[in-house]
């Protein structure tokens, strides 16, 4: 069953968002490391929504977390009503960028890189006027 919870679109929500994702991860039986990776991924994408989708555009709105626990996976979807933004459309740092000295490197794209790297599946779609960022964490079979 899909569970839905909304948060005000400002950075004060990040703390409670992570806590909520942590609760869902616990319900799904995710281990400590995948739980952290999922919290980080959701935090990074939510930060982009809040700072760029909403605040920079002068938009005051909520975003919604949809989540579902199946036998195989914990699925989390972030839904927002900001202008269409596909996190996968921008160029991500490659292995050359990530081995560069910290003095020389560009800092952009790290959040999205961590997101994609940390979850089992990440996808994006724009549907019915909403950005939908979807995160999937597989549940280890016992």
């Amino acid at each position, binding site marked *: 069953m899909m569970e839905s919870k909304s948060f005000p679109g400002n950075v004060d929500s990040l703390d409670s968002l992570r806590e909520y994702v942590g609760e869902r991860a616990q319900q799904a039986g995710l281990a400590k490391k995948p739980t952290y990776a999922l919290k980080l991924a959701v935090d990074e994408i939510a930060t982009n929504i*809040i700072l760029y989708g909403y605040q920079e555009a002068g938009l005051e709105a909520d975003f919604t977390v949809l989540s579902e626990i199946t036998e195989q996976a914990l699925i989390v979807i972030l839904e927002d009503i900001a202008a269409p933004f596909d996190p996968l459309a921008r160029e991500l740092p490659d292995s050359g960028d990530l081995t560069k000295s910290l*003095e020389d490197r560009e800092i952009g794209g790290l959040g999205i890189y*961590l997101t994609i790297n940390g979850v089992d599946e990440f996808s994006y779609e724009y549907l019915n006027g909403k950005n939908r960022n979807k995160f999937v964490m597989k549940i280890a079979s016992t």
Partner: protein
Amino acid sequence: MKVTITDQDEITVVEVSGDIDSKTAPEFERNAKVAMDKSKHIVIDLTDVGFMSSAGLRVLLMVYRNIRSQEGKVVLVGVSEEIQDVMSTTGFINFFTIVEKPEDGVAFLKQD
């Protein structure tokens, strides 16, 4: 998140507790700058930091560049396994000295 700054001889210790995200990173950055104005030998104690997003990595990048430009040194203390994973994935880990205890950090900076 809370940040405390203390001086130990020529070394400034920045102790952070709580989560570092895009809400709290500006406060972490402000304190790191204060510490670097005081001293070019900095210990950043992250023992009580359970979560750090890329907003925190940006602050560490700023610290690294600043310290390098004044030929100082920075040591990170008590970095959780999860945060070390993130630093490793992003290639940050090779540029920082990480120790377990604050006193190890101070000892490292006093070596030379």
